[in-house]
């Protein structure tokens, strides 16, 4: 008897991927550069007082750099967590739900970061 089993078509070619792959590397470089700047600050000022810290974050330039760093962290985290979810979570509905939750969290963190950096 010929048994006909169900065939699952596997469409391929979502036509994206390299931008995320490149972005993960670019954001990693940005995070590394910011880490060096912060490390430099700690080296120069061996004892950091509240005043030093306040003065550092009082500068508009530093706030922008800090925000760029944080956005890099969040974007890097998005690609990384997305990859983990794509690796392990098979049911599409659960994967999409988790991905949306991650995106919403990271967007909230971004808004929160701006609020903190520019708080009076």
């Amino acid at each position, binding site marked *: 008897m010929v048994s006909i089993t169900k065939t699952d078509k596997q469409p391929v070619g*979502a036509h994206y991927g*390299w931008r995320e792959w490149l972005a993960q590397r670019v954001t990693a470089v940005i995070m590394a550069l910011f880490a060096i700047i912060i490390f430099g600050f700690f080296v120069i000022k061996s004892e950091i007082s509240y005043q030093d810290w306040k003065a550092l974050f009082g500068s508009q330039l530093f706030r922008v750099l800090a925000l760029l760093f944080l956005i890099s962290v969040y974007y890097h985290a998005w690609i990384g967590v997305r990859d983990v979810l794509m690796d392990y979570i098979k049911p599409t509905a659960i994967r999409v739900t988790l991905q949306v939750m991650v995106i919403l969290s990271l967007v909230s963190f971004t808004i929160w970061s701006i609020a903190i950096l520019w708080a009076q």
Partner: protein
Amino acid sequence: MKFNILRYDPDQDQKPYFKEYDIALEPSDRMLLDALIRIKSVDDTLALRRSCREGVCGSDAMNINGKNGLACVTKISDLKEPVVLKPLPGLPIIRDLIVDMTQFFKQYHSIKPFVINHDTPPETERLQSPTDRLELDGLYECILCACCSTACPSFWWNPDKFVGPAGLLAAYRFIADTRDQATNERLDNLEDPYRLFRCHTIMNCVDVCPKGLNPSLAIGKIKEMMVKRGV
């Protein structure tokens, strides 16, 4: 010499189990495959694939003391006892050390492993300059033993979607071939978060390849070409 070999006959066994063997080897037994053939002379129910016995056909790939390799090119003297032998991980077991490679070859075929050239075929071969030919070194030598793909966690989790190191090495072999005219189509086919970008550069493939090839490098070159094409 002591061996622990994973045995499984789906017709008889509920689940796979380890069987211990203590075999007296002859001085002529130098490679693991020699030892396995010696074991087979005692217990002919042990099933394994082998053919050329010199690392060319890629039939006797298995998990040897936790690392994928070819039994025929693995020296007995290098092995710690008891030698634990398992079938290649991640693929369905047909029997004992024999796995079902359907998924592996499906991915290999999906990259169209042949030169695509629409020009009228010349009277003789399509010639290449020695420099162009050099590009294929480290790519064409793959024997499709599946040691790399079955050592790759990304292939374990998504064997239906991720091409895997062997398939991607082969893909780059044709992308790098100056006689092939389908570079764009090949890149289009691989531009996918699953097919190519499930590779997280874990490099287990490089670690296990019995031919000393570097699929990670080839995958990196494909990604680089995609960035150059798109950025």
